[in-house]
């Protein structure tokens, strides 16, 4: 009997406190992005996802990871990959290199996606000079086919190299409906992004 009560209590606790707790990001200054690497001043509400793929990443979304997401990669140093490696020895990922140029960043993202997520179809589109918090940056577009559901996802990103570290903020959403609906919110958000260190 005691065992049944304990099990029931455990079940109730699990239901009450979901393990993957996400956090609402209210409009206003937020200076804790990727452990304080970025700050931003969003005008709209976002949700910060609990899951992240490595120490240098933070994901915000409106409706869910696969529907619209802003991914911050903050301060990735030379010699480190953008996302966590499944197995550093057996499945190493491409890394940030010391002599990278801005046009190398879209290729780094593509190689990372192809290697880590098994994405077989990915294309980089427009690549233009830009600024990220006053630093020279590259703005670029890309598309890829989600290998699991074969949904075409569009991406728009801005990235800079500063002091041997890579900073990248990307928006990704399905080409159908979600990208066009939400990309302006991303563009508005990016205008408020600054690098805090």
């Amino acid at each position, binding site marked *: 009997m005691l065992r049944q009560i304990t099990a029931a209590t455990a079940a109730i606790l699990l239901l009450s406190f979901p393990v993957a707790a996400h956090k609402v990001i209210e409009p206003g200054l937020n200076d804790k992005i990727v452990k304080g690497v970025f700050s931003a001043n969003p005008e709209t509400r976002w949700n910060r996802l609990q899951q992240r793929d490595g120490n240098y990443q933070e994901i915000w979304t409106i409706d869910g990871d696969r529907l619209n997401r802003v991914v911050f990669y903050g301060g990735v140093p030379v010699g480190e990959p953008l996302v966590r490696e499944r197995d550093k*020895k057996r499945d190493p990922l491409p890394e940030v290199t010391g002599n990278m140029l801005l046009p190398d960043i879209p290729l780094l993202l593509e190689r990372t996606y192809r*290697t880590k997520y098994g994405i077989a179809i990915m294309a980089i589109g427009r690549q233009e000079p830009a600024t990220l918090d006053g630093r020279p940056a*590259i703005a670029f577009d890309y598309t890829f086919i989600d290998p699991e559901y074969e949904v075409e996802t569009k991406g728009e990103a801005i990235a800079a190299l500063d002091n041997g570290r890579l900073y990248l903020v990307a928006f990704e959403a399905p080409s159908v409906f979600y990208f066009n609906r939400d990309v302006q919110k991303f563009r508005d958000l990016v205008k408020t992004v600054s690098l805090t260190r």
Partner: protein
Amino acid sequence: MRRAAFCAGAGLAALLPLAASAAEELPLLPPYVAAYEPQSVDERGMWMMADEQEKLWALSELRVDDEELNAYVERVLCETVGKDRCSGVRIHILNVPAFNATMSPNGAMTVWSGLLLRVRTEAQLAAVLGHEFAHFEMRHSLKGFEQRRSASDASAWLGVLGGFAQVNTGDAQVSLVGSIFQFNRGQETEADLLGLKYLAQSAYPSRAASEVWQQLMEESDATAFGRKIKKRDTYRAGFFDTHPTSLSRADYLLDQALAYNDAGDPRSKEHYEAIQKHLPKFLADQVKLNDFNGTEYILSGIAGTTGWTGELLHARAELFAARGNPRDLITSTTLYLQAMDAGYRPPETLRGLGLSLVKSGKRSEGARYLEDYLAILPDAPDAAIIKMYVPK
């Protein structure tokens, strides 16, 4: 829908005429029945699933929509297993940069772009297609399903290379191509040996089957060497392994091929002519995977047949440029120049060369090639960012 022609050892069987020429006992192929329809509840269910999967492949973004390439693979299959048998198969070529082919019980076969890149002759392609067709002919999907009523084995060819995750073979990629019909170790050996019989009966030399496994092992070793880890291949199949080891396969396939003592033209030149149009893309997809030594092995293997063509030199240059150590940039610069000397001058070569030079500190030389790139493609999607490296 055109239904599969099938051999099942049934009463209606008609023996294929054997156009054999080898000296030693030539293998008899199993009897063959055309227009086979699924019989049991299990089999009908599997066919229904396979039909649904095939509809997805037909519409898939991953499908390489090229009639000529499809016709090439179909021709190789038909020349391997015979015209009657191959008429029951539909081939779907998928743009996935890994070595694999799959066979569904309804006669739908997928061939991945990574396979077309890695096989070096028509005969090697025939060996893989014959192996997959043998699974189909022996109705292994059904037998395996009935035996296990669950599918959890790794698919055949990915076993060797998939361990290094050239693609994410663990989940997404495999689920995408629907490898729900998988086989166990005994079935793999059966398919190996029947596949070898097809080869021995065909105009291709049957030793090509062993070559495929040798090359897979060598590529796997090259990848392991590059990552400074122990070679992955084991020399003895464990109790729970679903497939014979690559070494034992290479070994028994070679032994049997020697016993057949058949000869034939492996048709290497024809293979590279058939994939020529797609080769730059197949190479680019491979180079973008983070496997320097494995990719070097593949490139050298192709060069062993075709020589170092402009396409191969460009791909090798991209490989070095992507790794990006200072010494790599010197090598990539040399390779881009060699590709151009070989007459290969697409805009991407000029771009790669220009950026390699800029990164090596030779800005003005790099700018010259980047200017050439912009002159050819003034509206390139990256024109604006490349202009940053060209002085006004």
